[in-house]
């Protein structure tokens, strides 16, 4: 799995160019990077599958897994056995750290567990890849960041779009001014499902444990689990963080005992007046998900890899006439015909941002993590993106709860 995209893109993104050009993974066991996984639920197992794919090229070893819930741990161990990988399994992460001393860990536990596990790992001299959002509370988010600063261990948050060639190329164009002045950013994530995982019939007491995303003690629901990705994209495009947030939310459809909203709408405002307008809901999937970046010269829709100029190219007949004139030819201009302007506008499909989309960003971010471990550090920009997305996501939750427009408390400024 290779990084695609133009060399200009790679050069401009220090966290990618650091390893895209000439990965030196070595072949020997002494070069091997040992990665353990803490939290082997659905996302943890998906990250494991990606690790299996990059394992040989990236020269990594998976010595151990940990999960407090035995069925998930057993599934994950089985997956390793199928790959001929011998793993040790633990239900207590402290035992894993103590006995295995991995080079790095992947933390894919429920959100409220991220902070203390990540901090303990960093204090033990272990590099951390932690799924997004960073943590359940503002204080925990700051504590994780502070632990990274004081220990010097890598803390990489799972915002995989930072490694996605479509986003890297698109952001390059945005930062180069090809879209002109950004007037508004808009994003949404719409789904149509209850988000529930099955709870064993004989264990109804596991409801909150398994469906942690639906309960406020463990998660902020749509905000921390979905919006944080797209808020990270907005900050990245604008190269700033917001100055305020206001929002509203409710449970309109899934009145099933959950505590988190199934319907949220927020506006993040930036210093120059630009707005990032966000909504998410889970009882209609027609519109899916998208990040729409609108500048006075062009538009980008990232999730469909599309760039649109505000001045679409002329029709083929005119292009041919222009070419003929430039080339010195006197030829018929095949231009005439009744034209229907609304149709012309509708049929402008834009153009792809990146043509070759044979990559998987969640795998690329893991390749990055392994490479940074070899170097002993990761670009600071990455943790800042994760931190800012987490802090402003959680402020969004507070804005919805209080009904107020909130600004960043100074103690959380980095």
């Amino acid at each position: 799995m290779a990084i695609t995209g133009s060399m200009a893109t790679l050069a401009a993104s220090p966290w990618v160019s650091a390893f895209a050009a000439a990965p030196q993974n070595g072949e020997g066991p002494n070069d091997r990077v040992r990665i353990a996984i803490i939290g082997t639920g659905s996302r943890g197992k998906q990250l494991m599958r990606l690790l299996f794919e990059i394992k040989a090229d990236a020269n990594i070893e998976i010595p151990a897994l940990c999960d407090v819930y035995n069925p998930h741990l057993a599934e994950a161990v089985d997956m390793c056995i199928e790959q001929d990988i011998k793993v040790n399994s633990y239900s207590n992460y402290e035992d894993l750290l103590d006995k295995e001393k991995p080079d790095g860990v992947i933390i894919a536990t429920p959100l409220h567990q991220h902070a203390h596990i990540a901090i303990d790992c960093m204090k033990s001299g272990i590099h951390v890849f932690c799924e997004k959002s960073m943590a359940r509370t503002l204080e925990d988010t700051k504590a994780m960041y502070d632990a990274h600063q004081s220990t010097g261990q890598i803390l990489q948050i799972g915002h995989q779009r930072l490694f996605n060639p479509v986003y890297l190329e698109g952001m390059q164009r945005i930062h180069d001014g090809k879209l002109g002045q950004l007037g508004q950013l808009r994003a949404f994530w719409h789904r149509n499902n209850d988000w529930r995982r099955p709870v064993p019939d004989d264990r109804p007491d596991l409801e909150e444990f398994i469906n942690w995303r639906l309960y406020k003690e463990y998660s902020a629901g749509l905000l921390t689990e979905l919006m944080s990705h797209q808020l990270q994209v907005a900050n990245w495009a604008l190269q700033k963080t917001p100055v305020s947030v206001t929002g509203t939310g409710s449970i309109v459809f899934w009145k099933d005992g959950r505590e988190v909203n199934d319907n949220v709408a927020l506006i993040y405002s930036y210093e120059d007046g630009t707005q990032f307008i966000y909504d998410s809901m889970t009882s209609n999937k027609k519109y899916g998900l998208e990040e729409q970046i609108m500048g006075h010269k062009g538009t980008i829709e990232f999730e469909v890899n599309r760039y649109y100029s505000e001045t679409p190219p002329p029709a083929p007949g005119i292009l041919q006439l222009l070419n003929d004139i430039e080339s010195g030819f006197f030829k018929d201009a095949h231009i005439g015909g009744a034209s229907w302007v609304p149709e012309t506008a509708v049929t402008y499909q834009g153009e792809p941002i990146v043509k070759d989309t044979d990559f998987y960003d969640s795998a690329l971010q893991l390749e990055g993590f392994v490479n940074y471990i070899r170097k002993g550090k990761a670009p600071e920009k990455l943790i800042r993106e994760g931190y800012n997305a987490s802090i402003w996501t959680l402020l969004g939750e507070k804005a919805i709860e209080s009904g107020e427009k909130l600004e960043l408390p100074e103690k959380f400024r980095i």
Partner: protein
Amino acid sequence: INAFISFGGSSVLTRGHHPHGEFWPFSFREVGIKETWRLTNDALSISQTKADNEKHTHILNTLEEKNATGDQMACVQSNSATDAEVLTTALLAGPENMQNKIVAAFDIKKHRIYNIMP
């Protein structure tokens, strides 16, 4: 000056000539029409009774309250852009036996009605 101004290929205004010839060699997107119209200081308009994906014509004869029939394209070349625009619609809206009479009332350079083959 030499200028070629086109609104989607259906309303055209020209001044002067093509930089490499003595006129603007205007031709059609429609493959079946192989003519070249020579434009210099001219306006040209094209109208069609219906668009490619339309079932019914959108051009109406309001005097007799009936739609234009068939699938035709009218093209008019004139000094006056207004005349060209108005006449392409009028020639399609009015009855066929009135076309010559309509054209005779205006000072235009050239006109054609084409039948569009399906």
